[in-house]
């Protein structure tokens, strides 16, 4: 088990981590997600003993790893894969063998372990090739094998797919799942791609400005972000500020700049709140049309239409500004263009309410 307590790291005047607390359980895949520069890499580098914390500690199975005087042997119990795919300028085989040679393992043991690792990453037939001639995705697979072959109890991966194309990314993700499933390796990975976190992780933490804003299962984080910045990061593009004016059995009316919005919450009347709504949960109707069962329906005017591949992003002003994601067909059928009149509707259950005050942590 990895326990991180009150961990802080400063580089000069720049405070990169501020009081990080986290427990990672044995055998789980934990994803640290967050925007670039939020301190994710620094956290992993501290766990891998590549950086020393300014304060706080990291315990692995009870041992404070930075205080211990056998840092090299502690480090040899972990493996790390870096964002940039790099290989040593030698053969694929020797790359994977590097960690084993450092550990002074016998030639026969090296042969069999490297062979197994190369089969796992699908490069067994290219063992003697110069690793520098591999593609980026292949190099990253070599990096994974190089870290894995030493049989670490903890594998750290810092944005392992950030520099790779979608197919290479899929390969690496598949590898990560298999490593965790077949070897029971505990994995901590960082990513700025929240969907990757959702695909891979058992639990994840959203790191914002050097601290975890929320830790939970992907489902919890995606459906119930507990602060506005987490909501923003997980794709809840519409964040409306308002005040609870009335509340009845878990359903409140929130005043958003003079417009009432119905939303489920236990936050009492009088509190300042943010209403978070995914753009895909907002439905647009022709002006004057029946908006069905949605509790929240407003007339508005289109302010922008932007194509995003198969979907279009439509901005509407209906007393407050909202963005909706709709199909191309809907854009045509509803005649959506800047200035057009539309009806905006969303269910009360599509609104996630957080206290504004929670942001100031």
């Amino acid at each position, binding site marked *: 088990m990895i326990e991180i307590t009150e961990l802080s790291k400063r580089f000069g005047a720049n405070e990169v981590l501020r009081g990080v607390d986290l427990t990672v359980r044995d055998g789980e895949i934990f994803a640290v997600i967050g925007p670039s520069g939020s301190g994710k890499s620094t956290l992993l*580098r501290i766990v*891998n003993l*590549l950086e020393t914390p300014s304060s706080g500690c990291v315990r692995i199975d009870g041992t404070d790893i930075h205080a211990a005087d056998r840092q*090299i*042997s502690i*480090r*040899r119990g*972990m*493996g*790390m894969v*870096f*964002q*940039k795919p*790099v290989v*040593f*300028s*030698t053969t694929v085989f020797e790359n994977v063998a*590097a*960690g084993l040679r*450092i*550990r002074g393992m016998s030639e026969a043991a090296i042969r069999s372990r490297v062979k197994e690792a190369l089969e796992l990453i699908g490069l067994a037939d290219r063992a003697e090739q*110069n690793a520098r001639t591999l593609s980026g995705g292949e190099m990253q697979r070599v*990096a994974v094998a*190089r*870290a894995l072959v*030493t049989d670490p109890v903890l594998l750290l991966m810092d944005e392992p797919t950030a520099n790779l194309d979608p197919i290479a990314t899929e390969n690496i993700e598949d590898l990560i799942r298999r490593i965790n499933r077949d070897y029971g390796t505990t994995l901590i990975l960082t990513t700025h791609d929240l969907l990757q976190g959702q695909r891979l992780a058992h639990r994840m933490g959203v790191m914002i400005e050097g601290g975890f804003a929320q830790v939970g299962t992907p489902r919890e984080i995606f459906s119930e972000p507990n602060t506005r910045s987490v909501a923003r990061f997980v794709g809840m593009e519409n964040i409306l500020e308002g005040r609870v004016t009335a509340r009845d059995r878990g359903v409140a009316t929130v005043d958003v700049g003079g417009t009432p919005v119905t939303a489920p919450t236990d936050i009492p009347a009088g509190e300042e709140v943010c209403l978070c709504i995914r753009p895909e949960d907002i439905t647009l109707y022709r002006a004057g049309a029946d908006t069905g069962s949605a509790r929240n329906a407003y007339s508005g005017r289109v302010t922008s239409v932007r194509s995003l591949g198969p979907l279009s992003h439509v901005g509407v002003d209906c007393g407050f500004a909202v963005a909706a994601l709709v199909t191309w067909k809907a854009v045509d059928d509803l005649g959506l263009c800047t200035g057009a009149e539309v009806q905006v509707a969303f269910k009360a259950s599509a609104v996630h309410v957080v206290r504004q005050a929670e942001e100031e942590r």
Partner: protein
Amino acid sequence: MNEIIEAFFQAVELIVTLDPAVMEIAARSLIISLSATIIATAIAIPLGFLIYVHEFTGKKMLINLIQTLYALPTVIVGLFVFVFISRAGPLGFLGLLFTPTAMVIAQTVLILPIMTGLTISALSGVDPTIRDTIRSLGANTRQYLALLVREARFAILAAVVVGFSRAIAEVGAAIMIGGNTKTSAFWTSTRVLTTAISLETSMGNIEFSMALGIILLAIALVVNLVLMTVQQR
């Protein structure tokens, strides 16, 4: 124009027929510059490594100084070595002036800074992620440095090649310390490619100079081809 073309063909003829005078000069040039390169390598690579590894006050200044000496004028080296080995100098009793040995010394001094500096650059130039990877794999300090040198080996080899190229191409020190002498014995003469080109040209032996020039360029070409092949392997 015709004269130039004619001289060129005569030069080629001198090379193809393995003209003894031309071959002797080329061989001596290679021996002297290779010797200087080997000695400089034996000093510069360990020295560069030590400077790279150790942290000390004035390290930056020292590296700056070394880099400044990349452009060390060959005649300054010639003058410096001359002062030491001329009859009146502190090493005058060795009688080294106008000997191939003296030329080796001068060329070694000339290429030491650039080879040391490029060795330091080669080691500092290893990708930071490679460094992190080595440490992350659990290397101790000795293993870390060994792997670092292994990663930098092609860049260090390039430093050696640059040193050799500078040694074989320089003329200032060779003429001041060697004197372009032509004696009856191979080991006491000091005529090398550059000094011979310089003097034969002034004497009007254009085809002879051209032959030596072609050989000099060919040596540079071969050395670079070898380096490229090794680096791409």
